[in-house]
């Protein structure tokens, strides 16, 4: 305790420690994994590709894929918990009614402001490239996953 810059309150004599002196022991079943679930199989390239399509975001490199694996491994710890008969909780405000406003127009007519930040527009329209064209398939796309 000498090391801490001492305010008077800190110099009071020690009593029995009121905080747990030792960390909670690591729970059984983790072995040397330190807080991860057991190592599992890697995610298939098909699923990775599917994720890139859904998210419209790329893994970019092996680090990105590894990140996902670690995230899954971490999340797997949830399965250690027994949740039989437990009701899920989707909101902390579940005991309250959702507020709905009266259906009255209170603001609007701000087309100019809304268009202000768009890069490409024509009159009062946002301009997008043609739709209904799916992303190229894995083989044709420039993606890290191609090599996998």
């Amino acid at each position: 305790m000498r090391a801490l810059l001492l305010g008077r309150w800190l110099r009071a004599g020690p009593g029995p420690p009121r905080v747990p002196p030792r960390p909670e022991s690591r729970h059984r079943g983790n072995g040397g994994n330190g807080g991860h679930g057991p190592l599992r199989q890697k995610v298939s390239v098909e699923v990775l590709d599917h994720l890139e399509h859904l998210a419209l975001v790329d893994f970019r490199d092996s680090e990105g894929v590894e990140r996902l694996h670690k995230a899954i491994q971490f999340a797997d710890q949830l399965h250690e918990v027994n949740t039989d008969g437990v009701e899920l909780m989707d909101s902390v405000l579940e005991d309250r009614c959702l507020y709905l406003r009266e259906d009255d127009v209170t603001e609007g007519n701000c087309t100019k402001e809304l268009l202000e930040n768009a890069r490409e527009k024509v009159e009062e329209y946002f301009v997008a490239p043609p739709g209904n064209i799916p992303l190229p398939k894995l083989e044709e796309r420039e993606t890290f996953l191609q090599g996998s």
Partner: protein
Amino acid sequence: MLRASLRQVSAALKEGRVAPTELCQRCLALIKSTKFLNAYITVAEETAMKQAEESDERYKRGQPLGILDGIPVAVKDNFNTAGIETTCASNMLKGYISPYNATVVQKLLDQGAVLLGKTNLDEFAMGSGSTDGVFGPVRNPWSYSKQYKEKSVPKSHSEESDWVITGGSSGGSAAAVSSFTCFAALGSDTGGSTRNPAAHCGVVGLKPTYGLISRHGLIPLVNSMDVPGILTRCVDDAAVLLGSLAGHDPKDSTTIQDDFEPFELPNLTDVSKLSIGIPKEYHAPGLSSEILALWSKAADLFKNAGAKVVEVSLPHTRYSIVCYHVLCTAEVASNMARFDGLEYGHRSDMKDSTESMYAATRREGFNDVVRGRILSGNYFLLKQNYEKYFVKAQKVRRLIANDFVKVFRSGVDILLTPTTLSDAAPYTEFIQEDNRTRSTQDDILTQAANMAGEQGQELNCFPLPSHFTCPVPLGLPAINVPTALSERGLPVGLQFIGRSFQEKQLLTVAKWFEKQVQFPMIQLEEVKRHDSGVFQHQKSASFS
């Protein structure tokens, strides 16, 4: 004067001892000379001076709008501010000028506060160091304090390599308050993002109950957990800010409809009716011995003053991190979907199709951390994984909530826990860990648990494990109170967690504790040069 508390300076404004324009000018000058901290992304000099001039007029007429009139404040750059760039420290929103004010920003302005600028953060508020934004890392003002310099054995002779991080993700806001460039700042707290940097920068960081303060205009990370955070120099100031910001907002349906009565904090003298809970699971592996000792001393402090101090158990604590991880990434995956380049923000030049344009835009606009979370979130939400992960996490959330209900029902009023595992890490060490555990960096949770399990002592210099943000998935209010300086001369704080919507009780206890510990004021050369006169007679250590 710059070192005074918000209430003190407000009184000075009212009594005419200083004018809002002078105050604003000094703050702006200090911001300039502390630019190396990189706390601000945007400094709104012109608009701030204009607001200060208007405040001048009101004071001259004897009609100030309230206690916040003329007070310089700063706002984290993930709150929308009309006419001022809002970037979330991301390439995705560089150049985006908000067309509207977030409700909390509007409330501040309506009460005459002077908005100095937007503060730096981790990109999209994802991170616990404020090192991951595109505008670079924020430096902890304490790195330049007399207290730190006296204790440090510089590895090289350059200050450049010795500086420590602020923690995050509201690091810019914490640094701004800590370095006296503003009297209060807004942050956001989803997984500890206000309390963590508050602890590392030696300021008060309050995360109010979910539903108390409007999130309208706060660029969302996790809709069910985000809360605007309040950073101030003392607990009384936090109560003032809370009073100005709390209350139902028709534009945010997740704000509760109950009336909110702003309050002044009583000066508690008798704590004998108080019951303080010490959750045993919060002694996380990796907790530094310094903080453990401090926590213990704090418990003794309450006991010796007559309060009831009991050890309690929150058995599912260690799963709260995992639960948070899954729910957070899932919501992030959904929230980040709005960034496609079409209506605002960065837009790629790719023109082949909407999908390819979106993909390219997002590829160019988001950093590794953000992309990583989006992909993880999407994985957990896949049809084949939905029950196994997302729903499972929601069930575990219920179990965690029940733990707290049980503890609070047993008569405990407030929980006392550490805020961080240790004091602030040097930047060079922090990013090394990053690179090594790169795959887990994007998730402070993963990182925390990883380190805690395998790496023992090395981890002393890590910031908050989400272990301590346990109350976040449940919306409970929590506050960091700066407690003492570490062996290295850096701030260490402790956290108090209260019952939902019982901010008055939480803050009252925090204020009592603050008074007992008398946390020292930072001694910064820069500030001495800019400060003067008005409050010279005041002792620097007290914030009463």
